[in-house]
């Protein structure tokens, strides 16, 4: 292989794209030709220079902006709730609240709690005049809290207390004695 032919091959040889037979011939020539070796060095230098361009410093926030814009373009409704949706959501909450208020207003008021109805247990403290739960003394020797029945609980008939917090009314307290017929 002569210099001209070898130099023609150097452009591909430098990047490893030369065919095997060409590569072997070029390598054989390079062992004997200093000028072609110099030429090969120039190719290597310019390839190295190009590699410098691989990645640099992009302006700040470039890639975040790319994602945001791509997302806005292809998924415009994701993550953002339109105003109409908010109106529907708020209306739903208000209607739910209004419904609860209506049901509460339709429930007949019960008679005030009778003291004997709520404090029949031996360990129960007497309830206050307003039927509120008494507060046990701090550091007292009572091992658990005993509450009076809450004001909203159906009262007027004795209730059965299962523990300090839960109450189960007698069935007559709900239905009335004349309605109970088992």
């Amino acid at each position, binding site marked *: 292989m002569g210099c001209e032919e070898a130099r023609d091959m150097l452009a591909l040889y430098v*990047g490893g794209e030369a065919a095997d037979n060409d590569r072997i011939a070029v390598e054989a020539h390079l062992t004997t030709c200093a000028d072609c070796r110099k030429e090969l060095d*120039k190719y290597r230098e310019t390839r190295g220079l190009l590699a*410098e361009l691989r990645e640099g410093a992009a302006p700040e926030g470039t890639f975040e902006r*790319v994602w945001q814009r791509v*997302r806005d373009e292809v998924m415009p409704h994701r993550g953002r709730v339109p105003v109409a949706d908010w109106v529907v959501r708020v209306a739903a909450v208000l209607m739910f609240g209004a419904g609860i208020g209506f049901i509460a207003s339709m429930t007949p008021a019960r008679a005030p709690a009778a003291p004997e109805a709520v404090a029949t247990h031996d360990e129960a403290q007497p309830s206050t005049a307003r039927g509120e739960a008494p507060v046990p003394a701090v550091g007292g020797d009572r091992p658990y809290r005993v509450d009076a029945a809450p004001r909203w609980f159906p009262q007027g008939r004795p209730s059965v207390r299962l523990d300090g917090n839960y109450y189960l009314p007698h069935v007559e307290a709900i239905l009335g004695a004349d309605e109970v017929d088992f």
Partner: protein
Amino acid sequence: MPDPAEIELIRKCREGDESAFRELVERYQRRTYWVAHNMLNSYELAQDICQEAFVRVFRNLGRFDTKKNFYTWLYQIVVNLCIDQMRKLSHGRAVDLEEIGGLPDPDERKDPVGSTERADLRRRVQRVLDRLPLKYKIVLTLRDIHGFSCEEIAEIAECTNATVRWRLHRARRLFKDLWGRTMDRSEEEASRGQAQEG
């Protein structure tokens, strides 16, 4: 050979999974951006191309053949967008021609890497690259800057392997000669400056 994890990611994207699509974008956006930047030598245009490429990817994922490599398809879109952009910039009189190669890069005034020696070298290399004809610029960018194989470049540039090798051969010779001339001119200018000072 397509990566099975990537195929799964693409399947999720097709179902409209936003986080899968974000992962796909994050996986490729840097390289996409820099390929576009090397082709157009503009940060703003590179960002636009990058963005548009992913929008097209999302919209055409349904038609993508998962037996092929996703990234060659993506870079095919990127390269085609860059070619369109360069053609538009070259022929459209309404567009500022400074945006493309052969002329001072407007981004040099706002280069985020500043005026370090390396940044200066990068600018000079990019400027020489910009002087190459488009078909040579494409193969040099993909092969010598971003390390794609000749087979991949053939798929991306939609030509044969032999055409890629021939273009690569011509592109390297041209770049070497242009770089050599640029260096000679710089040395001449430097020695002239020294003579004037003396």
